[in-house]
């Protein structure tokens, strides 16, 4: 479904992603595991095309020079130069890190803004599904999203990405700042939307423990380079992963 070939991303002369390749098959849940500054967010931005927008904006501003090498293929088509809005229309939807929501708008309105490309009745339909995934959101639907807790905002952020009806959902650190209980709720929801809606998921995370049992395959990234790859189970039993991420 998605293929990344030899991605290299530079911010000025700093190398954020170094020769990274990955393949994703339809229906999979893929984990990208790595510590802070490993290049997870850069990878997500490159796959979703945000990096192209960032590059244009920085250029206009006379700011940082961003260079991207390598190819991203989606359903066999080279989309390396597609801007983010075109990739969204193709079905690649990213939920950015740190629960991106529109703080000034109510929860219900957040869904409406997220459904920019969708018809009203489609939005309502998906919203019902999101409320069934995260029942707490329904009781908060009139509250300003900026006043929700971190976990609630993360639920909302995932829900907003679902409103776009993705075929490939990219989740950038969906567990960041959540309590273990909330982490479990989010992981259960990811599993559910993969099983019932058939959405392919790539999620990046530094907390390997709740993620590894859920994912089909995982890529471990360090300093922008792929260090290890395998099924969730293989990674879980790998002594290096155990030492680095489980503290065993």
């Amino acid at each position: 479904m998605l293929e990344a070939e030899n991605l290299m991303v530079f911010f000025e002369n700093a190398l954020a992603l170094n020769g990274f390749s990955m393949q994703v098959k339809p229906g999979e849940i893929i984990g990208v595991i790595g510590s802070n500054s490993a290049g997870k967010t850069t990878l997500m931005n490159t796959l979703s095309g945000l990096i192209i927008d960032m590059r244009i904006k920085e250029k206009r501003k006379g700011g940082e020079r961003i260079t991207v090498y390598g190819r991203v293929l989606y359903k066999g088509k080279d989309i390396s130069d597609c801007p983010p809005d075109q990739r969204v229309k193709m079905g690649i939807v990213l939920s950015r890190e740190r629960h991106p929501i529109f703080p000034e708008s109510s929860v219900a309105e957040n869904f409406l803004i997220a459904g920019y490309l969708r018809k009203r009745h489609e939005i309502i339909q998906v919203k019902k599904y999101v409320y069934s995934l995260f029942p707490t959101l329904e009781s908060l639907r009139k509250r300003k999203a900026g006043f929700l807790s971190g976990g609630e905002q993360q639920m909302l952020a995932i829900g907003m990405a679902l409103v776009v009806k993705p075929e490939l959902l990219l989740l950038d650190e969906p567990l960041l700042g959540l309590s273990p209980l909330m982490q479990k709720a989010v992981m259960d929801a990811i599993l559910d939307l993969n099983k019932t809606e058939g959405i392919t998921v790539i999620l990046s995370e530094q907390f390997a423990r709740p993620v590894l049992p859920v994912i089909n395959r995982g890529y471990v990234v360090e300093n922008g380079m792929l260090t290890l790859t395998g099924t969730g189970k293989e990674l879980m039993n790998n002594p290096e992963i155990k030492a680095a991420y489980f503290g065993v």
Partner: protein
Amino acid sequence: MLTGTILYAIINSAILALTAIGFNLTFGISGVANFAYGAFYVMAAYGVWMLIHMAHLPYPLAVLISISLTTLAGALMYRFVIIRIKGQTLSEVIATFGIGLSVLELFRYFGFVGFEYTLPVFVDKSFLIGDAYVDAQRLLIVAFAVVLIIALWLFTHYTHLGLAFRGIAQDERTSLTFGMDPDRIARMAVSFGAGLAAIAATVIVPLGSISPEEGYDVLIKALAVCIIGGLGSSGGVIIASVVIGFAERFTDSYIGSHWTMIVSLAALLLVLVIKPSGIFGKQKELEERI
């Protein structure tokens, strides 16, 4: 005297709100401080005048064409100038201010100055309300301001494009992940702002005459209202217009007409000292709370 003062204060507030609303819309959504705003205002007024007196078009048609052309001019300014320097706030200000200056001074250079440059009123009537005479045009301005504000509110809360405007205004990069094209939305924000300036011009200008100075005056007024209200906040624009509108009229009636300009500028300074983000600069407040 009091009824008259209150009545004219309401009218003054409506005029201020109408002048500021376009500037505020553009800034709130695209983050572009459009300093050519006054030039668009004057350009629209001269446009109507030229269409009536040179092309001999009927008044309503001239108004519609002029508003559309000004809207288009806003879009062109974004497409060919602002887009290249977007994100460099200072360059944006210099570029738009430069465009505004040249447009206004060109009108002066070609001799568009004098009392004959005025627009006809929509309805030539006046009424006695309480103990004050009010003409129909002024009442129309109030009605127009109210309708326009309600229409804008409905637009930004219930239409796809309006909701996208508010999404971009709150978090541009997140909006991108929902398939919005930021340049398209920003271009529309600038052109809608110019269009609103044109609408304001066509209803307000019949009260006086058109001159290049009017452009600078409108820009200063719009800036004052937006800064006092909190840049980018629509609620702030309304409140600030009412505050300045009433303050100006009441000083005019009870203290002296030469103090009116001082009052609004003093209010501006006071707000900047006490609450630099403006009365309704709440975007920042929320951010701090999280």
